[in-house]
């Protein structure tokens, strides 16, 4: 008993006495604990921030009346008379187009404008208090060129006569979409038609009993609801219901937080992977630490410590290291989590402070201890197998074992075979060209399984792969002279260590490369789709798809704020090869003249080959006709027909074209010469320029044509794509961070292990600077080797994953960003090795060489 505890004490005292080394050993665990507890706090911050500004039902609302069919204005009047009701306001909103446009207009909301129920704040002018008055948001005013005193014409609901509204004020709202106006509840209800409100919000007089008032309001409602409406409302949901404001706010909060919850569920997956990476790093660092203490362990064995006791001591040491590391990580995350909101507030970003989740903190610290104890098991089991005789040995060529055991080899090969087999299974599961009821979830899960197997195989076989990888990757370095040769030799000389670190880097790179490839593919896909949806910033068409009035194209050209004005003809009454395909027109749009030309992608063939006698088909049409590039089709219009050769097909064609043809071929089909539409780009960037251009265009074309602003859609989608890739890459970045820390720790520890080697190099004439450079290059090589492994895994698996979702997609491999990832990791790992390398180079050659220890 005493013997066991004394061994334990020897190990633990060592760990306590050297807190810096304990932390260094557990650095990856520190980062993991930091990330885990950081995401707990991050969740709290986001949730609280979202809840703080959902801008939903105002806190002043005590009761809320709503129904599927809305609530009548009579009911509002009745409710106002109910005793105990201090104030009641009606809410409604409706969208009104500008007359003569399609889809262009503003939403008009009912709002009291002041008091506790107001959701807007008056900026200038007055708030509307009569019919035909409106207040608009600043962005709306800017976009439409409106000012206080100006007027705006809107189409009324139910095809009534257009109304002219006077802008009496400008108001601020929580989120300004640029198409928003506010007015009184009575007028808003009339605009919406049928005098109906979406809901009524109530405030009670102080001291009123909510239950009593609710009953009274319900009674008033049933009295106020006309019999006709009641009979029409057969379902129970049609009858207005009364709910408390607290209830409604709770529901709104739940809905708002659901998005946050989903985001963090995704984050949890990546945090888990980062933890796995940290465990891998911890395993490798403990292996190095125990190897360094081999003599001490052998001595303990020689003086009678049992293997089991020693193992227990080492695992306890690991748990202790994990405890310290976990505590450090949690404290760091806690400090940052509470320092960040005030800091952000200073920069004008209002972010809520997180709470003090003691339970979670405790769980993370204990989890860190447990996970580290687990990570220590394998290295400790190897370490305690040391022969007691090792203590007496003086020879110092303790080069690590190069190869791997037979069991590990067989396991690795089996794992690799399993990965290949499962991967092959996925290929057979891939969807055909036109899958029906295809659910990609199954194949995706199988791909994840195959990827996990492949990664496990990499972990097992890594040491065998390091040397071949170095033979290729180290080639340019070896040519750089002895420094490069030594660095390559240093990494290759300890392949097990290089593999252990490389595997973690590989995990980070696999995720990063996968995210990059996915985003790049999605980007190309969306760009193609966008180019089809929004081929130019602005489109001008006739509301009834008739030819544009003569001279209109010239008027559009005359608008100075526009460039790349491209007119085109569209003819809907054509047929292709007897195929009945609805709503697809023949269009002679010259794609090359558009600013988006580079973003169009052919799903087959080449868009560049267009010309007379040739046609580009929309893919759905080509599929229906059973033709592809190289085939010929007959296009019929009335009694005329032309024979055209298909040069390309595309998934998303601009201006809803079924066929893109040459103007000469449309002439041969007898299509009138007048253009039916014009596309144009705004010459200058920025929203102001766009608004100004749209205003200028609107006054130039007048009511004769409708204007579509495509650029807004594109910006919207662009923004969302950027957001997605930022979130994805920062999540993936967690694992990369752990990997870089792993390389730093490994280099740091291996430098200590190789003091003698450094001393020798200094003794035989290597300068300090070159020694530091060599060790730094070695650290960078860990990164390069790992990144290469990662890329080799990422390329096939991201291809598989994307093809599993949609077999028709062309997978994009963004060579530049991928190369950048490898370079950045090499640089980051080299940087991580810089500090330990500098320390090693300061070792005096004599200290390194004198005596055995």
């Amino acid at each position, binding site marked *: 008993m005493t013997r066991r505890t004394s061994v334990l004490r020897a190990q633990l005292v060592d760990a306590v006495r050297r807190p810096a080394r304990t932390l260094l050993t557990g650095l990856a665990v520190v980062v993991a604990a930091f990330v885990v507890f950081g995401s707990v706090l991050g969740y709290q911050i986001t949730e609280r921030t979202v809840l703080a500004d959902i801008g939903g039902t105002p806190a002043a609302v005590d009761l809320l009346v709503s129904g599927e069919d809305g609530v009548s204005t009579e009911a509002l009047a009745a409710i106002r008379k109910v005793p105990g009701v201090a104030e009641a306001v009606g809410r409604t909103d409706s969208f009104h187009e500008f007359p003569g446009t399609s889809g262009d207009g503003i939403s008009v909301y009912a709002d009291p404008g002041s008091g506790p129920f107001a959701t807007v704040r008056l900026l200038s002018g007055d708030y509307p208090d009569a019919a035909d008055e409106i207040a608009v948001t600043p962005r709306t005013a800017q976009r439409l060129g409106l000012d206080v005193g100006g007027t705006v014409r809107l189409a009324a609901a139910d095809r009534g006569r257009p109304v002219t509204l006077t802008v009496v004020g400008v108001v601020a709202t929580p989120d300004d979409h640029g198409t928003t106006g506010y007015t009184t509840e009575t007028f808003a209800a009339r605009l919406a038609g049928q005098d109906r409100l979406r809901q009524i919000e109530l405030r009670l007089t102080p001291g009123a009993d909510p239950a009593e008032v609710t009953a009274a309001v319900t009674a008033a409602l049933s009295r106020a609801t006309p019999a006709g409406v009641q009979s029409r409302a057969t379902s129970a949901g049609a009858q207005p219901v009364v709910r408390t404001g607290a209830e409604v706010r709770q529901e709104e909060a739940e809905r708002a937080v659901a998005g946050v919850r989903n985001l963090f569920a995704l984050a949890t997956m990546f945090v888990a992977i980062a933890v796995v990476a940290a465990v891998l790093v911890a395993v490798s660092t403990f292996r190095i630490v125990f190897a360094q203490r081999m003599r001490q362990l052998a001595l303990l064995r020689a003086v009678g410590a049992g293997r089991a006791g020693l193992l227990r001591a080492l695992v306890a040491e690991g748990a202790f290291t994990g405890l310290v590391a976990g505590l450090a990580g949690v404290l760091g995350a806690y400090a940052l989590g509470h320092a960040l909101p005030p800091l952000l507030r200073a920069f004008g970003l209002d972010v809520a402070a997180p709470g003090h989740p003691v339970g979670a903190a405790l769980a993370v610290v204990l989890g860190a201890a447990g996970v580290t104890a687990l990570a220590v098991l394998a290295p400790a089991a190897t370490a305690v197998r040391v022969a007691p005789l090792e203590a007496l040995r*003086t*020879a*110092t*060529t303790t*080069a690590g074992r190069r190869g791997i055991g037979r069991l590990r080899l067989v396991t690795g090969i089996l794992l690799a075979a399993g990965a290949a087999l499962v991967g092959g299974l996925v290929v057979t599961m891939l969807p055909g060209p036109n899958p029906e009821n295809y659910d990609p979830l199954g194949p995706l899960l199988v791909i994840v399984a195959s990827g996990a197997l492949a990664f496990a195989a990499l972990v097992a076989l890594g040491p065998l792969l390091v040397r071949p990888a170095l033979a290729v990757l180290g080639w340019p370095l070896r040519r750089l*002279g*002895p420094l490069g*040769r*030594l660095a390559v*030799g*240093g990494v*290759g*000389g*300890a392949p097990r260590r290089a593999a252990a670190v490389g595997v973690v880097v590989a995990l980070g790179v696999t995720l990063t490369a996968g995210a990059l490839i996915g985003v790049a593919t999605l980007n190309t896909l969306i760009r193609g789709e966008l180019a089809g949806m929004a081929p130019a910033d602005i489109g001008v068409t006739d509301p009834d798809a008739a030819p544009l009035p003569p001279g209109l194209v010239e008027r559009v050209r005359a608008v100075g704020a526009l460039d790349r004005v491209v007119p085109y003809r569209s003819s809907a009454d054509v047929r292709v090869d007897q195929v009945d395909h609805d709503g697809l027109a023949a269009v002679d749009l010259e794609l090359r003249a558009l600013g988006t030309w580079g973003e169009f992608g052919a799903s087959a063939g080449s868009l560049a080959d267009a010309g007379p006698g040739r046609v580009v088909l929309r893919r759905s049409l080509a599929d229906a006709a059973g033709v592809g590039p190289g085939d010929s089709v007959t296009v019929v219009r009335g009694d005329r027909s032309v024979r055209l050769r298909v040069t390309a097909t595309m998934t998303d064609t601009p201006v809803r074209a079924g066929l893109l043809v040459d103007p000469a071929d449309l002439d041969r089909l007898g299509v009138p010469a007048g253009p039916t539409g014009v596309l144009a780009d705004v010459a200058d960037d920025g929203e102001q320029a766009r608004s100004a251009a749209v205003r200028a265009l609107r006054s130039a074309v007048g009511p004769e044509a409708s204007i579509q602003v495509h650029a807004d859609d594109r910006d919207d989608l662009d923004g969302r794509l950027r957001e997605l890739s930022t979130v994805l890459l920062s999540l993936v970045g967690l694992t990369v961070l752990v990997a870089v820390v792993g390389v730093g720790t490994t280099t740091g520890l291996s430098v200590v292990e190789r003091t*003698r*080697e450094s*001393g*020798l*190099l*200094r*003794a*035989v*004439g*290597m*300068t*300090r600077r*070159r020694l530091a450079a060599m060790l730094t290059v070695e650290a960078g090589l860990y990164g390069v080797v790992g990144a290469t492994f990662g890329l080799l895994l990422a390329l096939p698996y991201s291809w598989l994953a994307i093809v599993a979702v949609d077999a028709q997609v062309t997978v994009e491999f963004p060579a530049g960003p991928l190369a950048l990832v490898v370079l950045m990791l090499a640089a980051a790992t080299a940087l991580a090795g810089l500090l330990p390398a500098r320390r090693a180079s300061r070792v*005096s*050659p*004599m200290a390194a*060489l*004198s005596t*055995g220890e």
Partner: protein
Amino acid sequence: MTTHHPDPSPAVAAVDLVKVYGRGEAAVRALDGVSVGFRRAAFTAIMGPSGSGKSTLMHCLAGLDTATSGQVLLGDTDLGRQSDRALTRVRRDRIGFVFQAFNLLPQLTAVQNITLPLDLAGRAPDRELLARVVDALRIGDRLTHRPSELSGGQQQRVALARALVARPEVVFADEPTGNLDSRAGAEVLALLRDCVRTLGQTVVMVTHDPAAAAYADRVVLLADGRIAGDLASPDHASITAALHAVSLRDEARHERILRDRDRDPALRDPALRGSAVTR
């Protein structure tokens, strides 16, 4: 054989060399005014009891350590006045080392280890010399092996080749047989002596083993940081006798120190007592 007479231009020499470790009361004078020259193309052994300063002397002579005062002359160069960079270059270009612990780089093959100093200097190895050295040391069939695949004797012969192939002005050997069994040790020592004869190499060896020192042309004895004897054409018996005399003197001195300490409370310093006892 060799006759002992003063050499007008030694390969390497120490002049009034003093090396003090630590400061104040804990200061230890490891070298206490050592002046000695080492002849070109000669094999000299430095001997002395543990703590006599023989390793410190070698480290100073080899540019691994700088002396507190005095001069180390390697040819015409005063090593005491050199920067770390210059010392590094001196070690790389003008000095060869053989260590007790072999100190081969595990990731390099034998031949890569041999040419390492030349590689670092950016010099191409002299093919003919390399072939001669490899041949003389009988490691021609081991050149592509890594250190872990070589026996101790073979490793030390590779280390010897590394020291020789750069054609240094002096090869310093620090207990080169300390990690070898007596047969492998004898072999290495014989090879070392042959290199002196056939290649005209200057070799300075630190050892505590009289049998090893017997291979040398001259033995310099050190005690308490001072030169305590100088034997020309030594053999096992003369060396043993000289060592015995030196250590007797040493013991007497230590007893004196212990007596003084008991009388003088100022000397009852645990650090000093520790160092005195280990001596």
